[in-house]
């Protein structure tokens, strides 16, 4: 099968599987939102009220496949429903509040760790055997060996509670007016330091190793020898010749990481009370908020697929050989 139909087929199949999983996975979990309703409203609801609420929530007793059909038809009309845990706020509105922050936190931390890690890896490879090479990669590796939440809690405790250098959590403080102003930007940045910094700290090791390995491979290539023979300056040799080629395989991994920014930040968001989608997803799962869960799953899958697509495209731009 040629490349294009295969990609299309892949995206279609992945989409179909995602939609199906989105629907059935939450419903396979023990417990159901109805009981949760009873529990939360204990004593404040009669049986009739409960039924009325269940109707309002869209919790019908129809067979699953019928519900699935309804879900699909709603999905095709672009209706994602209302959140149960934040009833009756529409799911889109709930997601809207966290989307930007997740994107900010995710992109900043992934790109930062990618950039720093790759630079360290490239330098370590170029200066193989030097003191830098024998210290930096193992240190980065060891930092990456700590469970993420452990690092995060420790950082929270030390920097925010003990020394009170940085804010405790959330994306910005009460005392700034959200908008395009310097004070707000500075505040957002200050609130980003701990969550993004801890993510960078634990994820940098992987990038370092990756870059170091691919770079060492590239350094053996004849075109590097030729670049040196040409008398080019070292930055040019390392940049345009070595790193430029070494980055290619790493790029696919970067795509995977970026694709996961909406899914992978749960612990960060929990620890730092960061208002993103990861924590919302966790909440949706623990409160059986089916519509919210489904919408988030969908968003995550779509973002992974979209980033995959972008990486495919970008790869073509970066590596002329695959054109």
């Amino acid at each position, binding site marked *: 099968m040629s490349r294009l139909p295969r990609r299309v087929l892949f995206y279609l199949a992945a989409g179909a599987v995602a939609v199906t999983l989105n629907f059935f996975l939450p419903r396979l979990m023990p417990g159901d939102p109805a009981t949760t309703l009873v529990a939360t409203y204990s004593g404040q609801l009669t049986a009739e009220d409960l039924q009325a609420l269940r109707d309002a929530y869209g919790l019908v007793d129809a067979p699953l496949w019928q519900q699935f059909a309804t879900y699909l038809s709603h999905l095709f009309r672009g209706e994602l429903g209302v959140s149960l845990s934040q009833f009756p706020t529409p799911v889109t509105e709930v997601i809207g509040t966290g989307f930007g922050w997740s994107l900010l936190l995710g992109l900043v931390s992934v790109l930062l760790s990618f950039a720093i890690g790759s630079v360290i890896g490239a330098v370590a490879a170029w200066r193989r055997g030097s003191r830098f090479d024998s210290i930096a990669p193992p240190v980065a590796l060891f930092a990456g060996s700590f469970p993420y939440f452990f690092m995060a809690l420790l950082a929270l405790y030390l920097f925010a509670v003990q020394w009170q250098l940085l804010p405790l959590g959330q994306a910005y403080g009460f005392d700034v007016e959200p908008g395009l102003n310097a004070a707000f930007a500075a505040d957002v940045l200050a609130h980003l330091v701990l969550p993004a910094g801890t993510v960078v700290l634990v994820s940098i090791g992987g990038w370092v190793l990756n870059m170091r390995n691919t770079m060492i491979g590239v350094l053996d290539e*004849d*075109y590097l020898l*030729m670049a040196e*023979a*040409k008398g*080019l300056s070292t930055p040019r040799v390392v940049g*345009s010749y070595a790193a*430029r*080629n070494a980055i290619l395989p790493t790029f696919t991994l970067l795509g995977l990481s970026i694709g996961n920014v909406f899914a992978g930040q749960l612990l960060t968001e929990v620890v730092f009370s960061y208002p993103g989608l990861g924590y919302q997803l966790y909440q949706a799962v623990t409160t059986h908020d089916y519509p919210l869960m489904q919408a988030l799953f969908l968003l995550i899958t779509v973002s992974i697929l979209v980033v995959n697509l972008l990486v495919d495209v970008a790869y073509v731009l970066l590596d002329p050989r695959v054109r």
Partner: protein
Amino acid sequence: MADALLAVEDLSVEYRGLRGAARAVDRVSFEVAPGEVLGLAGESGCGKSTLALAIPRLLRAPAVITSGSVRLGGRDILELDDRRLRSIRWSEIAMVFQNAMNALNPVMRLGSQFADVIRTHTGLGRARALERAAELCTLVGIDPARLRSYPHELSGGMRQRAALAIALALEPKLVIMDEPTTALDVVLQREIMEEITALRERLGFAVLFITHDISLLIEVADRIAIMYGGRIVEQAPARSFLESAAHPYTRGLLASFPSIDDDGERLTGIPGSPPSLIDPPAGCGFAARCTLASDRCRETPPFVEIAPAHRAACWEVGA
């Protein structure tokens, strides 16, 4: 030769590995006159590439140059500081590597690969550098439009020609060619060789031509040097090489090539295998495989003149 372009003297290179130091180039001396083609042949692993890379000091760890000098127009390359070294590279010594596919940066357009070397050394603007690149392409018979191509979009022969053109970009005095045609088809090889010969006649650069194909060398070189186990064992003019080759190893090599007009004679090759470079035997490295070997061979034979302009390192063929 006082007027030598390149004078390599007593050059030794070791690879310092975990299992000891391998002496890949062992006290090698030779000269290349301006405009001359010096052919360097020998078996795989005898140190040809190491020698070629040692001249512009391109060797990487764990290689170490342990002795000798490389004089280019009076300066010892081995003494230059980094900046001076970079400025000599390509403007005075250029190289063509065996596999142009690997030697060209796969993610850079051909034009940029011309331009970066031209701009680094001449300070020309990008547009002027590309103009110059176009001229060079025409010179080697590539459509200048191809400058916008990436290496993988060119055929093997075109890539090799492009590599040749890049080597000539700064009109160097010496071009080191390390098996520039080995990866090619015979017909293509012929084509490239003719290109090289023609260009050399026009531009007058000297060539250090490395290959393992003696037949080819005899056709293209002015002088031929034969390397064995890190040393040069014989050096003679190409013209009469077939008949005058004296060293038993050289003769063995010549006897290993079937020719298209030989008739049915059985060739024998050279039995045995080359000596270890880490722990080389004392004396002549070829003694173990040599039919003429005698007790004298336990001592290193001197590289002596056995005929005018013909030197060899063998006790048995000495004067």
